[in-house]
């Protein structure tokens, strides 16, 4: 699928990798479980004896069954798989989290969450509420905070998410590949207005953005 942002692209491929391994492993494990149940199931008529046939277990007997080696070997296999998943997670995270602070093209925008809405302040002091306008193909660095309670800033389509915490500034970044409208929403319960704490992300072609904002290059220093 075509992702509207590099962060979403990386996230999607990592997600697919996890889905594949999760589905394959659970399917194998559940299939073995299902096979055992069907294979060793006794006819229900055997219940009539109250299940009094000789069981293998006995109170006070040292457990004799099972080779620990099998369990450990299987666990190690699982462990190795998780090491693989973790390694790819870390490389994905490195990209998603590496804030392009030094990138001269990056546009820094302050995000202030409040009950209930989003306020965006641009380098030139321009402040708007409820709508975030950005140029495409430009790294956008967000400095996120909150004026009142704990919120979470998220652009779900881009897989960008960061908590907006009072008295604290958190950083996030993204880059829109295609012009369009996307949803910005709060992802932490923040009161009765939580569900409607939504803003629009408007990714614009650079010329259009500059027509609205003014020349970008002059604002950076």
């Amino acid at each position, binding site marked *: 699928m075509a992702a509207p942002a590099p962060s979403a692209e*990386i996230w999607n491929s990592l*997600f697919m990798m*996890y889905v594949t391994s*999760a*589905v394959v492993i*659970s399917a194998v*494990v559940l299939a073995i*479980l299902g096979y*055992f*149940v069907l294979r*060793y199931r*006794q006819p*229900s008529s*055997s*219940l009539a004896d109250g*299940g*009094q046939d000789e*069981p*293998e*277990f*006995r*109170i*006070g*007997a*040292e*457990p*004799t*069954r*099972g080779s*620990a080696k099998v*369990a*450990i070997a*299987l*666990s190690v296999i*699982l462990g190795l798989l*998780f090491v693989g*998943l*973790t390694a790819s*997670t*870390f490389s*994905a*995270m490195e990209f998603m989290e590496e804030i392009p602070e030094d990138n001269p093209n990056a546009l820094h925008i302050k995000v202030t969450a409040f009950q209930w809405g989003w306020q965006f302040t641009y380098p030139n002091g321009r402040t708007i509420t409820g709508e975030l306008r950005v140029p495409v193909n430009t790294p956008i660095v967000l400095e996120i905070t909150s004026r*009142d*309670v*704990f919120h979470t800033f998220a652009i*779900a389509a881009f*897989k960008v998410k*960061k*908590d907006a915490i*009072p008295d*604290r500034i958190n*950083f996030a970044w993204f880059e829109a590949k295609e012009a369009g409208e996307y949803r910005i*929403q709060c*992802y932490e*319960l*923040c*009161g*009765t207005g*939580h*569900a409607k704490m939504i803003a629009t992300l408007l990714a614009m072609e650079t010329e259009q953005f500059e027509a609205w904002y003014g020349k970008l290059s002059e604002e950076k220093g």
Partner: protein
Amino acid sequence: MAHANNKPNPLVVWLFTTNHKNVGILYLVTSLYFLVVAGILALTFRMQLSAPNMVFLAADSYNQAVTLHGLFMLLWVTTPLAAAFANYVVPIQIGAKDMAFPRLNALSYWLYLASGIVALSSFFAPGGTADWGWTTYAPLNTLQYSPQAGGSLMGLAILLLLSSTIVATSNFMVTIFRLRAPGMKLSYLPLFSIFWLVTQFLLLWAFPAFAAPLLMLVSDRVLGTVFFTAAEGGALLWDHLLWFFGHPEVYILVLPGLAIAGDVLAVFSRRQLYAKKVIIIAVSVAAFLSYVVWVHHMFMTGIHPGLREVFNITTELISIPFGAIMLSYILTLFGGRIRATTPFLFALGSVILFIIGGASGVFNSSVALDVGMRGTFWVVGHFHYTIVGGGITGLIAGLYYWWPKMTGRMFSEKLGKLHFAIYMIGFNLLYFPMHLLYDMPRRIFFYDATTGWGPINMLITMGSWIFASSFIILFINLINSLRHGPKVGDDPWGGANYSLEWNVPSPPPEFNFPKGVPVITAQGLEFRQPWEIKMGITTTGGQQLYGTTALPTNGGSHVAEHGEEHGPHLSPWPFILSIGVALTMIGLVFGVPLLLQGVVIFIASIVGWAWEDVKEKFHVAIEALGEKWPFDRVENVPLGMWFFLFGEVALFGPLFAAYFFVRANSAYTGFAWPLPGQIHSTVMGAISTIILLTSGLATSLALVAIKNNNQRGLKAGLLTAFILGLAVLFIEGFQWAELFAEGYTFGTDIAASIYYLITGIHGAHILAGLLIIIYLLAKAYKGGYNAEKHMGVYAFAIYWGFVVGVWLFTFPLFYLI
């Protein structure tokens, strides 16, 4: 009450009972009731979410319903349901006649019920109850943003529940460690008893750790401290403390159900558990790991990336022990002779659903994927698969498994299987589609049609109806069984060789083992008479028992062996005390008359309880003759106190951690932390320290005195400790009064808040100690202690030592640095 043991009134029995089986049934009925309440709440908000632009619940009702659903299911349903079975079967499984402290056991239950009633009553407070989600994030949880009194009441209700749990935990630990039958090694116990013991360790550290932030929250809301409004504390202080509790809590919820699943799989496949030792090691490792993963709930808070990688790894590590447990369970079935009864099916369901929940959990451990998942319905789906799927499904297996034991009657297998089928269909229709909503935020009461979330939500809501209706079948089946179910013998499932409860009648008599004391020998289970054990005749062949069979050194003269030798198994005080506490809390919001009644009843019950003790009217002395490893050399009462104090460490630990957290943060926020001596007089603090140390010495002297049967020394020591303790309280009160007069109050700044909270809680501990001294003195004057019998004094000495020890940390933090 003295004559009540002949033919007591049933109402009296149920209200005043201290018998573990009755307490278990009380827990069962109450937790199922709360399950229905919390389930109906869920149905209402699922209705609201069923379609876009829905108008069924308003935002504030929705938020309250979501919050109460979460809190009830986590705190008042799942663990208490497990506790119901634990109360009923664990004492039997280990071969004991009752819990170590039957009255405290009853107290745990009544405090639990009282806390539930207080929590429900918060709904009717003006403005409603807590509406901040069960996670109670700061600063939404402060008065400024959630002014309703019901929120504070909910905080108090949770604190009450936590205290009920700590009492129960200390009790279970002493019971499982010290009341086992002769020859019953820990590793011989079925998984349920073993996992329950592990769960107790988790509870002992996690629940008090949750009490710390709750105390801060309630003090913010009621006294005006500033923990969660000040920049130095605030959101992240709450986050760290909540999630330190939060992840162990997940295993607290899941382990008992998984344990039942394992036991049931083994019994109904007639095979030993596969690699039982690996299972035991794995569950212990998982329990330990659960304390070092909490930051994975905070990946988005902007904490250091390196820290996130560490917690990413610890979190993924958790899947290894759980993977080992699941694989062992599956391999258990290999080569078995499986009887697919209702309990077996639910055990199987628990394993299947937990595997799916475990697989989706791996996603959440990934810091990168968590960017997408956090705060979405994916997470909701995941934790319902683990907690409901793994935990509750296992507990339902337990309900069917032990139902004939508890009632003496069988249920309908047909209805049981129907329940299972509808349960699994409803469950998966309800929770699986949530994974597809990995962009939809949790806890929104409203979404519009452009989101495209409507159809999946409709599916989920339909699933919720099917899932809920499966419980109706369960209840019909159980009620029918009570009236018309065929009677069963001791062992309807063929579990007699697996665990002890299938070797006693259904339901078991008051002291569980009518055939004698269960003894585990190399040949298996035997029943011996107590005198045979005391004379050292332990097996038919005269062979030695396994392990360390510590016989009472005093000849067991005060060891009660038969029901008739026990005092009445009833005490009114746990029940009355809980009424007092509940009325006091409810009265805080609903009116002073209630409050006053509550306080009077509370004080009266404490006096009544102490008096019952001083007069030794209640003596269900549950002394065991068997295994006590590894606590052979500690008596029950001091051991219970040790465990309780471990819980206390988990309370004070986070309080001190909070101190360092806000103090470290003040360097960033620019808050000038007061210099030593600037606010608190170092001299006064030093005087308190010296007096407290002296009182500790006096307590030790009292203990040494009574060990030598020196009655005067005991009284003198206790009296000295009392006077010194009182002096410290006065000095403390004097300092508080002076500071208040200078205008330095609870809410002055964060340093004041933490000072008042820690010294206040410490002062409350001193006050409690003084009350215990009064009780000890009363009993001492009645001649209640001698060289052999002085465990109350011993336990108090440990407690007082702890109180002094906490002060040795407190003093430097506020007076010297």
